[in-house]
């Protein structure tokens, strides 16, 4: 066959001519060309033959019967459930990898927090941690985790509800760092002493070498508030968080998660069962990037007599958002840098929650191996972070 170059235009004309789909004028002019042009005629012939060959293909016999059962179409089923691809039916809409990652991370954090609470409650013979050291140790971590010009407030009320409000600092000029003592809170409710142990997840494990808390007088900063408030204060806190913000504060999201906590009937310590952790976040449009946050969890009560709300305010450097956690050598040899590296992408809410939990997880043994190896929650967390990093990597490469 000659190297005749059939143009796309001519190919379309010939194809439509084969299907008798040309209007009269086009058809006439094409036929006139075909009269003159042997090459074009040959193209037409080969295409006609091609179409004839394709149309000559016989049907393939079905490999099996495709008859439907009543179950397939949801009949004879008291609670009709789709038989085909139930996963697709359950998920109402497509979710991005990020949504899934963040949701699973949030779920993990909640479970993780619950596990921490359980372990601490069960481990109440553990010696109370040194207040001074905790307070001293915490700020340096908080400072590193805080974000630009944002103020976070985390509160746990006596029935275990967690209020988390992220507020943009009105001026962004809080230069002063404060350390307010953190004390456990014991509330008497219905004659039962409820100890909300130190609401300070920013506490380093006692065994951890204390990093130098040199965050004092860092200029241009933000603060993280962690405190206990009675239930009535929660809403106010959330509202004030929203009101105090500058700029667009138009989007207030509230999410409620339910977390299970075991009942504890210890004489000097009781934690409300079926804790509801409600997290109320006030966000700006850039909340994930800017809003600071905090987290809280329970620890052992060093004393059963104090009834006092604790509040801690820390200040952080302006560029804290970009500052990764410095490696803090811990007993088990894990460093904390990985945590911020992974969690920083997930928004500061999760980031802070997870870093806080991560920090306090190293001393929580899950089980012991022969020898002196102890598998801690930190180890479990590390595994999770690696998985998360894989998801995040997949999400980025998928874009």
């Amino acid at each position, binding site marked *: *066959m000659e190297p005749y170059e*059939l143009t*796309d235009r001519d*190919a*379309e004309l*010939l*194809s*439509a001519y*084969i*299907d008798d*789909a040309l209007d009269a004028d086009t058809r006439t002019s094409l036929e006139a060309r075909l009269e003159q042009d*042997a090459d074009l*005629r*040959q193209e037409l*012939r*080969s*295409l006609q*033959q*091609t*179409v*004839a*060959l*394709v*149309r*000559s*293909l*016989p*049907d*393939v*016999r*079905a*490999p*099996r*019967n*495709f*008859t*439907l*059962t*009543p179950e*397939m*179409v949801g*009949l004879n089923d008291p609670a009709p459930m789709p038989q*085909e691809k139930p996963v697709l039916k359950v998920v109402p809409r497509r979710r991005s990898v990020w949504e899934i990652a963040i949701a699973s991370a949030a779920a993990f954090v909640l479970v993780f927090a619950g596990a921490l609470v359980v372990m601490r409650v069960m481990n109440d013979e553990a010696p109370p941690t040194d207040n001074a050291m905790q307070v001293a140790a915490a700020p340096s971590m908080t400072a590193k985790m805080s974000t630009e010009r944002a103020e976070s407030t985390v509160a746990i009320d006596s029935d275990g509800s967690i209020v988390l409000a992220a507020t943009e600092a009105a001026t962004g000029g809080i230069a002063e760092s404060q350390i307010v003592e953190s004390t456990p809170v014991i509330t008497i409710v219905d004659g039962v002493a409820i100890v909300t142990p130190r609401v300070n997840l920013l506490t380093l494990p006692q065994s951890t070498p204390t990093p130098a808390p040199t965050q004092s007088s860092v200029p241009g900063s933000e603060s993280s508030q962690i405190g206990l408030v009675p239930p009535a204060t929660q809403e106010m806190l959330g509202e004030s968080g929203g009101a105090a913000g500058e700029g667009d504060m138009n989007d207030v999201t509230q999410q409620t998660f339910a977390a299970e906590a075991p009942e504890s009937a210890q004489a000097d310590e009781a934690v409300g069962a079926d804790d509801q952790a409600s997290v109320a976040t006030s966000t700006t449009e850039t909340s994930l990037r800017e809003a600071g946050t905090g987290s809280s969890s329970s620890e052992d009560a060093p004393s059963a007599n104090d009834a006092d709300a604790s509040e801690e305010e820390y200040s952080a450097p302006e560029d804290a958002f970009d500052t990764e956690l410095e490696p803090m050598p811990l007993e088990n040899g894990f460093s904390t840098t990985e945590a911020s590296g992974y969690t920083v992408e997930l928004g500061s809410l999760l980031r802070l929650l997870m870093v806080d939990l991560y920090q306090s997880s190293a001393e929580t043994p899950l089980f012991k191996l022969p020898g002196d190896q102890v598998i801690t929650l930190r180890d479990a967390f590390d595994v999770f972070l690696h998985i998360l990093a894989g998801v995040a990597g997949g999400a980025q490469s998928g874009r």
Partner: protein
Amino acid sequence: MPDPQAPSLMTPADIDDNELVEQAVNGDVNAFNGLVLRYQDRIYSIAYRIMGEPDGAADMTQDAFINAYRKLDTYRGGSFVGWMGRIVTNTCYDELRKRRRRPQTAFEDLPGGDADDGPPIASDSITPEEAALQSDLQQAIADCIRALNDDQRVVMVLSDIQHQSYQEIAETMNLNIGTVKSRLSRARVSVRNCLQAVQELLPPEFRLGDEE
């Protein structure tokens, strides 16, 4: 209660398609199964031409019949098999797009991945039994169709296997007619070029390009 596994007993061949549809709309799965048995070869063939391999074609065929049953109330008369053919085509096309978003195997890596590469290599996804049933020529044609890209292949199957008009194809695929025309002509030229590489398989009257 009739046994749903033996619906062929329930649907004598002389019952009209539309009558079976009417019964099916009223909840009679077996009436619908009469239509399934009547047209499953046709529908499976369409799926097979589009998907290019038997397992996916079977899945799509089953899905298409389930989908059709669920939206039977949108059937507006006319040719049931034509309506069904459009459903299976869309089911297949959706699946292909899904696979394209998360490709399991790079298509370029497969043998015969490009129609212009020369004679396609027979896909190993066809069982020897199936291959034996097909003549070499049919195999070659099928392979050339399989080598088309998804968009062109679907349009060609709609046009030259389902015999739909440009207008019907445009509606089925939600395309404008110009796109249908151009995809179809490209598909035909590709298949033509592909078949020219296996001239010796073609019967004399089909020797592509032979003037005399």
